[in-house]
């Protein structure tokens, strides 16, 4: 089963079985402006939900990317090392940041669906 969820810290999470692919939302990349650098996590790192795992620098700001779930980092998007602008071009596709193995599926219930995330952004 595949599903796409969102966090209140503006990450998107695509879940496929035990694996989650994570990036920042299109809304977040618009707020950040031109991305110039992405600091990627290390593959194999164990993270807890809410940990800072990556950071994104734009011409005007720096933002942290938080782990939406607990688990182990299994892959990172190495293209971002040389093409950080992928995040602006396609935040929710080619601009994915890392993949992780989900440790605790019960955490999924804390995530927002697309409608809830949309409403969350409008309130801000």
């Amino acid at each position, binding site marked *: 089963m595949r599903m796409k969820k969102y966090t209140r810290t503006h990450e998107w999470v695509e879940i496929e079985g035990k694996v989650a692919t994570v990036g920042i939302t299109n809304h977040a990349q618009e707020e950040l402006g031109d991305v110039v*650098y992405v*600091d990627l996590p290390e593959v194999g790192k164990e993270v807890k939900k809410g940990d800072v795992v990556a950071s994104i*620098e*734009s011409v005007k*700001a*720096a933002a*942290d990317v938080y782990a939406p779930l607990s688990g182990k980092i299994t892959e990172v998007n190495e293209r971002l090392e040389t093409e950080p602008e992928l995040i602006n071009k396609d935040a929710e596709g080619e601009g994915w940041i890392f993949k992780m193995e989900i440790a605790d599926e019960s955490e999924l219930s804390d995530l927002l669906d697309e409608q809830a995330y949309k409403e969350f952004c409008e309130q801000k």
Partner: protein
Amino acid sequence: MKHPYIPHTEEDIREMLDFIGVSSIDDLFSEVPVSTRSSLNLPKSQDEFTVFTHLKGISKRNADLEEYTVLLGAGIYKRYVPSVVYDLAMKPEFLTAYTPYQAEISQGTLQALFEYQTMVCELTGMEVANSSMYDGATALAEAVLMCFRLTGKEKVLVARSVHSEYREVLGTYLKTRGFRIDEIGYDDTGRVVLEDIDDETAAVVVQYPNFFGVIEDLEYVRKKTQNTMMVVVVEPVSLAILEPPGNFGADVVVGEGQSLGIPMWLGGYSLGIFATREKYVRQMPGRLIGETVDAEGNTSYTMILQTREQHIRRAKATSNICSNHAHAALIAAVYLSVMGPEGLKEVAKRSYDAAHYLQEKLEERGFRKKFSGDFFSEFVFEVPEDYPERWKKMMEKKILGPLPLERMYPELGSVALACATEMTTKDDIERFLEAMR
């Protein structure tokens, strides 16, 4: 107006207080404990003439080192600064406390700092340099913190032959945060002795030339630190004739830049030099100026990689150093450009020659050199037990003699650290030898 330098009238103050809903100035400071507010114990204000007279009286109690024979270095050096350096560096356009965030109005300052960074890289043999830190000691502390960030380890090995005050500052920075500092010893040559290094160690710190003036063997240090970061503390003038640490593969080079045109000024303010490898640049503390082009394609300068810094990343900044000694760096840039590579070599050679001449003369009189290693412009020699008293007496004759080391290095017995620079004359040396009889 209640005060000549504060432009607000009583009405202005009233209006502001009313606006924020506070009844008096005292209430505005109610958060500050009363004991703190009244403990400044300052005298009543006085007119300018009276204050100047008072301050001049105080400053007369300082020794003017222009009038002294100075054979003491230990981190701060009496060097000659060509007068053109200050004619340029003290131009009012440069004397601003403003941080050059707005590139469009700061091109002069930015270019000067960029040139400074470039010259630091050339001197140290490194790839990137920041646009200054407070001084050599704090630059070292920041370098070690950077090594901790990069390696994820929490222990550092520091040579005992590194300036003891630098080691103290390092302790102040690290110990309260739970980091560990271990010391490395030295042998009869005065150089470090490195055992096998465990994999808990983030970095090894050596000084080159070290506090004893001895030139460390950086090739040996690099060999012994294959899996550890290598941090080298330098004296920039010496690098005009010594092989730069970058050529030996140093990871970070830091140092005190006072030698580069900055007066002794009672030991500060001075200039912290910090240079590293490009691959570490995002973990480098401090400001960085870069060269780019403007909208019309002209070469121009701007602060870069600012996302590392506190004004953007707040508590998560790479380092909480959010200021630098920009004007000191600018003085250094002017000094270096006035001297040029050849001029700086000349300064280094003369310092070297004067120190070696002084050492020979002392040896002839039975004051033996303590260490066998090659030295640059400072050396440790054996002195009689009553030397500390003599040293104080010499000051009455306007001789600031070699530094007694018993407080810093009790294990060495009665020794002193002598220093000569390009300003040391034969007369100076004769006067000192006479005082040592």
